[in-house]
């Protein structure tokens, strides 16, 4: 009899370890308790363990990513002004939406939104959840609609690849998930809310520091370049636009500009080379884009 009880416990422990699925374990422990092989205390312990483990392992949900991104954007917008030009905003959002629909994630929780920051700096920032902020200085450097598309498609690539979320320290996220405990949805105790708010603040800082101060890794930048060329090609844009725009930035960087974007985005020459070989490997030739060139002229700064 005692051995059977042990067997039951071992089976349940196995499910916890294998599945990490708290709901499944709870079904099992309820049955186990009614069968008289688990005490109420055993059940509580097993349920709690299962829930904590499952939550600690979980990724951030898209809705959470959306709220995180809003906070990151609110931080950035505390430092820049928005460029008040509704015509150019509409143009940028049209290019952005077109590329987003061709991306691997056309729909996200709050949708994609693009805005121009009123600054001469060269910068573009993709906040988790779909808010993309691009400086006037960067947009002014684009020589065609294809190049503008390259800028936005690259930022969409960061969002689809969830690079912003990856900037959050794993320890912090595990702590946030653990802090949630087993409470019912949406009902936080005062102390729990305070702890979560602090962890939220820390996560916002992690993302802000990465996208504004230190920059993504070279691998993440190259992956976003690749995504951008794929989205552009699907949308009917000439993906060489990315190569052309990187070329402009590389020339400026070689010219000695090491401020802002050029400090957070080193290795422009390597990215240029990667884009060249990617286009060659795909066999994507340059194409004419007369209609878009004419349209772009109306928005040229």
């Amino acid at each position: 009899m005692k051995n059977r009880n042990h067997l039951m416990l071992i089976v349940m422990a196995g499910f916890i370890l294998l599945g990490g699925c708290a709901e499944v374990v709870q079904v099992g422990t309820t049955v186990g308790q009614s069968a008289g092989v688990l005490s109420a205390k055993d059940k509580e312990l097993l349920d709690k363990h299962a829930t904590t483990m499952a939550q600690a392992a979980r990724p951030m949900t898209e809705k959470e990513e959306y709220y995180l991104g809003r906070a990151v954007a609110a931080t950035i917008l505390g430092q820049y002004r928005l460029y008040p030009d509704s015509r150019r905003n509409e143009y940028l959002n049209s290019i952005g939406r077109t590329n987003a629909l061709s991306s691997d994630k056309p729909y996200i929780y709050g949708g994609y939104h693009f805005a121009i920051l009123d600054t001469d700096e060269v910068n573009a920032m993709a906040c988790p959840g779909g808010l993309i902020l691009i400086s006037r200085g960067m947009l002014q450097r684009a020589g065609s609609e294809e190049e503008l598309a390259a800028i936005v498609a690259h930022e969409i690539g960061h969002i689809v690849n969830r690079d912003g979320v990856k900037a959050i320290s794993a320890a912090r996220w595990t702590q946030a998930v653990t802090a949630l405990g087993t409470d019912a949805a949406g009902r936080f105790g005062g102390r729990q809310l305070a702890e979560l708010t602090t962890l939220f603040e820390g996560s916002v800082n992690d993302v802000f520091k990465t996208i504004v101060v230190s920059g993504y890794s070279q691998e993440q930048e190259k992956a976003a370049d690749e995504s951008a060329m794929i989205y552009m090609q699907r949308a009917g844009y000439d993906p060489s636009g990315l190569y052309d725009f990187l070329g402009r930035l590389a020339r400026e960087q070689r010219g000695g500009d090491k401020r802002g974007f050029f400090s957070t985005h080193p290795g422009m020459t390597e990215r240029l080379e990667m884009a060249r070989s990617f286009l060659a490997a795909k066999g994507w030739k340059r194409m004419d884009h007369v209609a878009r060139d004419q349209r772009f002229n109306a928005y040229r700064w």
Partner: protein
Amino acid sequence: MKKIVWLVLLGSLMMAAVAVAATFRVVTEEATIRKDRKFFAPVVTRVPYGEVLQEQERRGDWLMVNYKGRQGWIHVSAVQEQKFDWSSLSGGRAAESTRDEVALAGKGFTPEVEKSFRNKNPKMRYDLVTQVESYRLSEGQVENFIRAGNLREPGGEP
């Protein structure tokens, strides 16, 4: 002997709990069910976040679903599958594949946490975030933009 019966029953219950049919949950604020498998196809109905949909047919990135008696196509990126992935038992992705996005969304970084964060950091420019989020183009505008620029309507069937 009785215990063995209980063990078998327990095992079956566990399987029943996870062997859910191919159901999906809406993970965008509002999703659209369309007449055809195209981004700009006429809208059949709109579905709010968290609603559960049953898959009736799948073609490429589009699922045929029925919502309150209205049938149409929804894009896979607007939903998350709720089906249990048995292969996950052998790897470390179990939690990811079985997590219920909607149930969890009420437990982590929620509007409640955002509110508390805003109270703590009153200088954050959430007003400007709202302004940026309010830039909304209609589907007609995007469709015209694509057509006028000789671009391709994405996501349609080849």
